[in-house]
């Protein structure tokens, strides 16, 4: 009687244009950074610049590995610019899915129709996931395409692992935002929580690098779970990857439960 996954299909229909924009932005970053590697990183030029920088700064922004192709791609894209762009997308999408719809009044109208609450949350989560997976696959494909021309020398399966790690980090942020939205109905909370998960994860691992006394902070950092063992160089750490994705999925399920249990805001 009712169509299959209407909310999911509507989200995708309404966001594919934006998704093209995001893809172009990510492609621009990759095409800007990666082709510079042969002239910068490979001939040791960049290495000498890095050596002149304070060690703490280099550790913090993850430039300690920058002299190899894998380290360069990790430091510039997966660990920094890509992480930033994916996180922004995740925060925006995760906070608008439930909290944004509720604040705009759309959720009330939607849920007065033949749509279940848990169904709404689940389909919204899936729509965010599919978009992030697209960005991950697209980024991975671009890196793979540039692997030889930019002389990065990354073992191709490691690109898959790193893309899954990056996508997983973004998905985790988005689902934290989704849950905050499902609990409170406030976009400010959803945005704040989603961003906090990403920022704290980054800050904790950066601090952990500074001293052995702070290394325990890595245990609190999803960023460290998937990136501490360099995914492009040594392959992604499967345990950390599963942990990130597992928590994200649990958060998505919790969102469905949370939305089912409360009054909508008027």
């Amino acid at each position, binding site marked *: 009687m009712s169509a299959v996954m209407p909310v999911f299909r509507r989200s995708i229909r309404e966001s594919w244009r934006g998704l093209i924009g995001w893809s172009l932005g990510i492609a621009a970053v990759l095409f800007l950074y990666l082709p510079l590697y042969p002239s910068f990183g490979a001939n040791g030029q960049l290495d000498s610049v890095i050596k002149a920088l304070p060690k703490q700064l280099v550790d913090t922004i993850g430039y300690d590995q920058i002299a190899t192709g894998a380290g360069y791609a990790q430091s510039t894209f997966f660990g920094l610019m890509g992480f930033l762009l994916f996180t922004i997308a995740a925060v925006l999408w995760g906070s608008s899915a439930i909290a944004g719809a509720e604040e705009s009044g*759309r959720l009330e109208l939607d849920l007065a129709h033949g749509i279940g609450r848990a169904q709404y949350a689940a389909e919204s989560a899936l729509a965010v996931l599919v978009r992030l997976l697209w960005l991950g696959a697209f980024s991975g494909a671009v890196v793979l395409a540039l692997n030889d021309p930019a002389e990065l020398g990354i073992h191709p399966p490691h690109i898959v692992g790193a893309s899954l790690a990056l996508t997983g980090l973004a998905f985790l942020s988005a689902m934290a935002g989704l849950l905050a939205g499902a609990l409170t109905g406030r976009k400010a909370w959803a945005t704040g929580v989603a961003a906090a998960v990403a920022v704290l994860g980054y800050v904790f691992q950066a601090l952990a690098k500074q001293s052995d006394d702070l290394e325990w902070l890595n245990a609190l950092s999803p960023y460290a779970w998937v990136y501490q063992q360099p995914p492009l160089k040594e392959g992604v750490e499967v345990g950390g990857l599963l942990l990130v994705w597992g928590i994200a999925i649990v958060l998505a399920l919790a969102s469905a439960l949370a939305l089912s249990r409360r009054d909508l805001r008027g």
Partner: protein
Amino acid sequence: MSSAIDITALHKRYGHRTAVHDLDLHVQPGTIYGLIGPNGAGKTTTLRTLVDIIRPTSGQVRVLGEDPRHGGARLRRRIGFVPGELRLEGRVTGHRMLSFYAETSGPVSRGYTSELAERLGVDLSRPVRSLSKGNKQKVGLIQAFMHRPELLILDEPTSGLDPLVQREFLAMLREARDAGQTVLLSSHVLSEIQQAADEVAVLAAGRIVAQGDVASLRLGSVRRVRVALDAHDPDALHRRFTGIPGVTELEVTPHGEALQLAATVEGGIDPFVKALAQETVHDLTIEEPDLEESVLRLYGPAADHEGGAR
């Protein structure tokens, strides 16, 4: 035949504030039921519990024989709902938006959406967010009516509509009733309810203060009257009208050459009109006071509770 809506002892609290207090409401199938009351009386809260947007603090709610919470999406497909504060902000067109709701709550008969749009006079090819408030409200009405639901729950459905469209809407309501659909609508405009509803409940401060058919509620019986008439002696005029039953708040003021008389008339207006007929009347306005004033006057703490009160 069982009721279309059965509400028993409904309470809704938000923190310390009680929005709805011990509310009982029963709507028979195939009737139009009006819920009136000043803003903040608890109308919206009551209507939202019927579609499971909010949940009762205590009490029982049955809609089409089911608890809204357990009936879920399946039950809501049998209902058409217009929210009290309709906001449409999407970039999508009216057509797109309505076809989404047709997917979730349909089926919608072919061409019916366009027919309704034409009837109400709204362009569905425009993005909904670019529509005026009145036109958004029309889209809101269409999404509630288009799948011909058994039950229509309409929260202030005519807000923002111009009088011609309001008339069309009232016709749609009657057609719905004739087709066997049940309607529960709220309003803070008395005349609208008087024209449409078979039965009425008056809400004030979260409680039902009166319930019954429209005529028995006496709500229309309070009128504000303003007259400009040919007379020179304000005191004599004042004395003459003071004696008339039901006339209160009498004021006589000079108005150019003539005198202006303002008063509130409660109950039958005939004695007042008869007294007026002895003068030369230049101008006469009779208006119904706002609902808040009527409700307070008739059912407030100071009022007696004979007649329309339950």
